[in-house]
């Protein structure tokens, strides 16, 4: 058995397991291959396996910026959309945390009349179709003059993210006894010090997970942003939709698609590093 562990992973897997891994990898990575090729193509017509003409061959000849030249140019509005997406995502995450932390604390620790009804009510945004929420919000926001404003979009993004965040933080709070906070108070800490020095650091793994999730959900919301942005505020999902809505996927649309996937990939890498940090694993056994 000792020798086995020194063998490579590949030789330890059964043929079925190898096959399974390849299938999963294929499903995850497969779609990127035509996207990458398309983003570098000038003309790629059926039934060719590879583009007939590449972008780099045509680069000097065209008056217009092509493919990646276009994607990275101001004409594509990709920088504006990226800034909007990240900015809105950050704002939504912070506000969502500020709302969900106290709510999760109460849900985890207190018993009150109508608690289970409230918990059901909390998950309503996940049950009601996004289009219904979007149209209802739009009707209200037009009257309130919030349509087409950042503030309006942020409020709209909070609706589907708060239920997830509250649920995640409730679970984390349930694992954190009252003792720690009471001990800090007895030792003379103010409410703010208790939150900053004890509660938040101890909730950190849950807070990080919830924040990452909220940010990712926010950066991927299309419908609500589309309704409430009124075309005045573009984000990566709405920009992408406007490029591919016609049904054709040209090189610039493929490039934009690739850029839209970046925030998620970058966050995933950061979170992997962050959560593996020794300090966060320490002492949460009790």
């Amino acid at each position: 058995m000792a020798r086995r562990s020194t063998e490579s992973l590949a030789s330890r897997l059964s043929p079925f397991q190898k096959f399974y891994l390849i299938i999963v990898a294929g499903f995850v990575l497969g779609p990127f291959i035509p996207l990458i090729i398309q983003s570098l193509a000038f003309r790629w017509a059926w039934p060719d396996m590879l583009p007939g003409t590449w972008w780099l061959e045509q680069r000097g000849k065209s008056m217009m910026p092509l493919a990646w030249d276009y994607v990275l140019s101001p004409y594509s509005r990709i920088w504006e959309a990226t800034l909007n997406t990240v900015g809105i995502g950050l704002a939504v995450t912070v506000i969502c945390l500020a709302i969900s932390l106290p709510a999760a604390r109460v849900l985890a620790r207190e018993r009150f009349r109508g608690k289970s009804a409230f918990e059901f009510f909390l998950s309503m945004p996940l049950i009601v179709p996004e289009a219904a929420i979007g149209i209802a919000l739009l009707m209200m926001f037009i009257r309130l003059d919030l349509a087409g404003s950042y503030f309006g979009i942020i409020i709209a993004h909070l609706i589907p993210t708060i239920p997830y965040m509250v649920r995640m933080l409730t679970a984390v709070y349930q694992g954190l006894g009252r003792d720690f906070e009471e001990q800090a108070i007895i030792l003379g800490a103010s409410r703010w010090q208790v939150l900053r020095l004890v509660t938040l650091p101890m909730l950190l793994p849950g807070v990080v997970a919830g924040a990452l999730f909220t940010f990712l959900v926010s950066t991927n919301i299309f419908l609500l942003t589309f309704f409430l942005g009124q075309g005045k505020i573009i984000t990566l999902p709405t920009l992408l939709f406007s490029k591919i809505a016609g049904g054709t996927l040209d090189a610039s649309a493929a490039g934009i698609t690739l850029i839209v996937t970046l925030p998620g990939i970058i966050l995933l890498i950061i979170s992997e590093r962050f959560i593996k940090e020794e300090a966060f694993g320490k002492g949460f056994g009790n």
Partner: protein
Amino acid sequence: MTQVQLRSISKRFGGFTAIENIDLDIRSGELVALLGPSGCGKTTTLRMIAGLENPTTGEIHFDDRDVSDLRVQDRNVGMVFQRYALFPHMTVEKNIAFGLSVRGTPRSEISDRLDEIIDVVQLGPFRQRFPAQLSGGQMQRVAIARTLITKPSVLMMDEPLANLDTKLRGEMRRFIRTLQQRLGITTIFVTHDQVEAMELADRIAVIFNGHLAQFGPPEDLYRQPVSVDVADFMGASNIFPGTMTGTDAVKTGFGTLSVVAQPGMADGSRVHAMLRNEGIDIHPANVEGGDDMVAGRIAARDFFGATVNYVVECGAERIIVNEQSRRLLDVGMEVRLDIPAERVWLMAG
């Protein structure tokens, strides 16, 4: 050195009464145990003294000051929780210094007091460790040091020995006792274990169902409990119902015992007689004895090493006798029990 007084304290949660009209006068520098079964209100009492709960009625005084309305942070109390509540993301040093750093104590003073207290609790080699890397006894010492560094006027502990194994228990008991005496700090702890209470406390307050049943030194509670409930909780095993004949004898299921007259125990009244296991002398039946002898037969023997318990059948009752195991009597042997009058304690009812 602070005197703690509870004056007619009651606590109700909705319709449930956790504490009913408790008066408790704890002397300065005293080590007091609040003892009772779980749910009796002892922890609520401790939390009220700390300020984590507010009494529904009544007042709490530290010396001559009414602290009932003071915030927890302003009461200057210390609390060691049962599971220590060490902050898992901080080192031993950071944990211990917490109380000083949140109060904005200057760095140099923090470091001096840290050195001093770490020396007292002998945690020198563990300063940079995290709580998850410590043993139970070390975690408790960190918790105690963290509390003492703020120089609280009253120290509170929740089941201080409950989470420790037998060997550590003795060590921690001596440690807590010595430290408490050295610092002279008024200390109140909660426990459901009468052994833990007797091991540590100067005086024990027994609480049943939110009422203070008895408050006194361990030996009083052990030898002279005020009620059958207290006797039972303090671990008494020989409690027999009986009727007084005169004021100096009680008629029980296994014969008449002569007793020392006690106030309120009149001729003919129904009483309970308590016989401490170790207060009874056991002799083989052929040994001549005095008038107090009760005849019986050994039904079972439990050997504990240093001591031995005999279950002796006397008529319809079973009396448990504990003695040193220097000699051993056999099961089935006819014996006579010598129960001197001064070792019988009477309780009403």
